[in-house]
């Protein structure tokens, strides 16, 4: 019998950044970078492990906004164009670094990466990453979960169950339309949980989620198996518990594996280092310096003096860190096992984009984890669905309101930089509920209008906006997204009140904010 189980859970999410009104848009790069550095490399890893018959199991939460963008034809075309630009830059870099024994091979590394991405995306996957993920989902190696429609931080909206229900329903419907079956697992954004959420989740056939260690341990009653086994709410909904040690070893910005000096530095990028006249064509508007993805330096240390990146040294370090991770989990499991009636489970949830994008070697680390675990009988990788099938009885406890954010509650999404937005998102909700009550059974044009209103309400709730406002990164973009949602909704509300609909404007808006095509505004009707 194995000593312990590990469930790696990656949350893949980006906010809705599609901007068809512009020929190119800075924030769309978030998607392109994530496809290039995380999603496609993950698919390559899965293929490699399959080909070499290395056992692997992974749970991947896909946010509905990301699913919408990955399935969008315009963004697929734009990504292909962007790859073309990256390849041109790679060629120029090869030319610029010609003869340099250190930097030319690094430039070649990026040329190979983008060429591989181009080939995989356009030929192997024919632009359809979701279909590629579905392949492994059907095989049972990869479990896919869904998440709140626009990643709203759910505890903040708990006074509006209609709103939470809409976040869940739009997600479940979107998942089913893409993958042909209903999801069992639901990733609560930022592990934001509150007692009572289980009732709404269960109503949509969802069976389990992941909560923070704090939330679980403060649950009532206190879990009897600590964080080493999930807990069940009285209605049967299961909550898996984040393992502190497993996550800290990767998350810690200063002491986690990704901070090792041998790894590639994320910040030093030729977009900032090279003269404008050279790098201009590859950055925003020819003058706003951006990350290009071409990074030649190792983390080295805290100062600005960096040593050149050595991919072989970094790859060896990723293997070493994978061994260390497994060693520590085995030790942890051995300590817990004598106190348990089953092998302990360690749930390690991370942001998917951490791997490959920020932690360049993260995908290699994952590969090494599965390869090294193959040779031991101590640890076993499982998906949450597999574990759910194996252990149907769990200790009954309801987790406390919590999140994985700083302080463990809602402090990140509710503070001085972002608290103003809730006046608007709450008002939109109230208006939306009023509209759903006034127009309970519309069809045709008016139904389209109401459904678009519901989309705008969901867009206003994205937790990314308060998060960005707080972090100071892309704050103006975040503010504009909220303002746009409020403005669009207000116009719809006024149109409905005046009984006039601007068809041309509505059609344009539907094309711009084209997510959740199957949304049903009636979900906002007040529960009586």
């Amino acid at each position, binding site marked *: 019998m194995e000593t312990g189980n590990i469930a790696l859970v990656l949350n893949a999410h980006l906010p809705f950044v599609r901007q068809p009104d512009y020929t190119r848009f800075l924030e769309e790069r978030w998607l392109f970078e994530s496809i290039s550095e995380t999603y496609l490399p993950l698919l390559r890893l899965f293929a490699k492990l399959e080909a070499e018959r290395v056992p692997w199991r992974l749970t991947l939460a896909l946010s509905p906004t990301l699913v919408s963008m990955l399935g969008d034809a315009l963004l697929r075309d734009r990504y292909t164009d962007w790859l073309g630009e990256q390849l041109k830059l790679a060629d120029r870099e090869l030319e610029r670094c010609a003869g340099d024994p250190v930097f030319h091979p690094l430039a070649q590394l990026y040329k190979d990466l983008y060429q591989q991405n181009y080939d995989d995306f356009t030929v192997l996957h024919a632009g359809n990453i979701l279909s590629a993920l579905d392949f492994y989902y059907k095989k049972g190696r990869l479990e896919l979960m869904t998440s709140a429609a626009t990643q709203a931080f759910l505890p903040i909206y708990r006074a509006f169950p209609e709103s939470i229900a809409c976040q869940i329903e739009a997600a479940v419907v979107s998942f089913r339309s893409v993958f042909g079956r209903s999801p069992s697992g639901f990733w609560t954004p930022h592990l934001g949980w509150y007692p009572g959420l289980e009732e709404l989740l269960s109503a949509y056939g969802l069976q389990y989620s992941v909560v923070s260690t704090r939330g679980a341990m403060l649950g009532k009653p206190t879990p009897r198996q600590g964080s080493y086994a999930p807990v069940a709410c009285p209605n049967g909904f299961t909550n898996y518990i984040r393992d502190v040690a497993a996550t800290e070893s990767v998350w810690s910005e200063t002491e986690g594996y990704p901070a090792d000096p041998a790894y590639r530095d994320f910040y030093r990028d030729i977009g900032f280092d090279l003269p404008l006249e050279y790098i201009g064509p590859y950055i925003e508007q020819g003058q706003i310096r951006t990350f290009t993805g071409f990074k030649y330096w190792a983390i080295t240390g805290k100062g600005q003096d960096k040593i050149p990146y050595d991919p072989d040294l970094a790859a060896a370090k990723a293997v070493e860190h994978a061994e260390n991770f497994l060693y520590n989990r085995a030790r942890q499991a051995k300590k817990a096992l004598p106190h348990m009636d089953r092998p302990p489970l360690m749930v390690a949830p991370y942001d998917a*984009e951490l791997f490959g994008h920020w932690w360049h070697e993260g995908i290699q680390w994952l590969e090494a984890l599965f390869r090294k675990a193959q040779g031991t009988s101590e640890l076993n990788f499982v998906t949450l669905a597999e574990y759910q099938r194996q252990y149907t009885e769990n200790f009954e406890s309801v987790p406390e309101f919590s999140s994985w954010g700083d302080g463990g509650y*809602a402090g990140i999404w509710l503070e001085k930089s972002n608290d103003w937005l809730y*006046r608007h998102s709450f008002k939109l909700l109230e208006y939306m509920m009023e509209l759903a009550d006034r127009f309970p059974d519309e069809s045709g044009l008016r139904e389209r209008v109401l459904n678009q209103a519901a989309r705008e309400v969901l867009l206003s709730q994205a937790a990314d906006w308060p998060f960005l406002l707080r972090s100071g990164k892309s704050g103006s973009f975040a503010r504009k997204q909220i303002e746009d949602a409020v403005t669009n909704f207000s116009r719809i509300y006024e149109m409905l009140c005046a009984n006039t609909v601007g068809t041309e404007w509505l059609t344009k808006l539907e094309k711009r904010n084209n997510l959740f095509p199957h949304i049903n505004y009636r979900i906002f009707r007040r529960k009586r």
Partner: protein
Amino acid sequence: MNVERLNGLSIEALYALAEKMALDLPPSLERIFVVEAILEAFEEDNEDRKASGDAAIHIEEKKFSGSELDEIDASLDAAPCIARRYNETVIHCIPRDPEWAFAFWDVKDEDVDALCAAEGFSGFFLRVIRSALHDGKPVMSFEIPVGDEDDHWYIHLPEQDSYYRLDLCMRCGSKSKVIAHSNVIRTPRALLADALDDLESDAAALAALSGLDHLKIQNPPDRHPSRIMGGFDD
């Protein structure tokens, strides 16, 4: 943050940025000093964020990193394009953590006019009412005076695992009148629901192995060391 980028902004934009960052700069300051003050404030802000130890959130920020505009609000010169308020009489409350809640409210213009014109009107205040159950009887309350111009407040709540409601009130002479009620909120627990001493040894061991110390999660109040010592004294 980048000096070149700041130098590209107009002096008005620099002042707007300073104001947004809550910097109280004297008017007509030389450009070089405005830039310096902004840079310093950014540096301090970054240090604060680094010191917060909020690794998960810091790492999550990385996927949104993009350009040198990240740290400068690109729409500095743009006025907000949505109304600040909705001219309605309402109060909402959102729990933030075991100790704090956020409240925001509005009073319809015509109501404000009528209220302020009332004889003996001396101002608005929030009444914070605690109850043990969601629909339970109030067990205590306290008041927070707020200004006529205020429309939001962070409220310190003394009891975790308790229910609170806010009333937005006005004071008229020795009397008060409720203008709006908020929703009821519950403050989450910050302490274990069950004392570790009461758990079976296996459960207590697993709780410890789950990182309670790391998370600074403690026993419920009746098992605080001072109370336990009191028990020994008995």
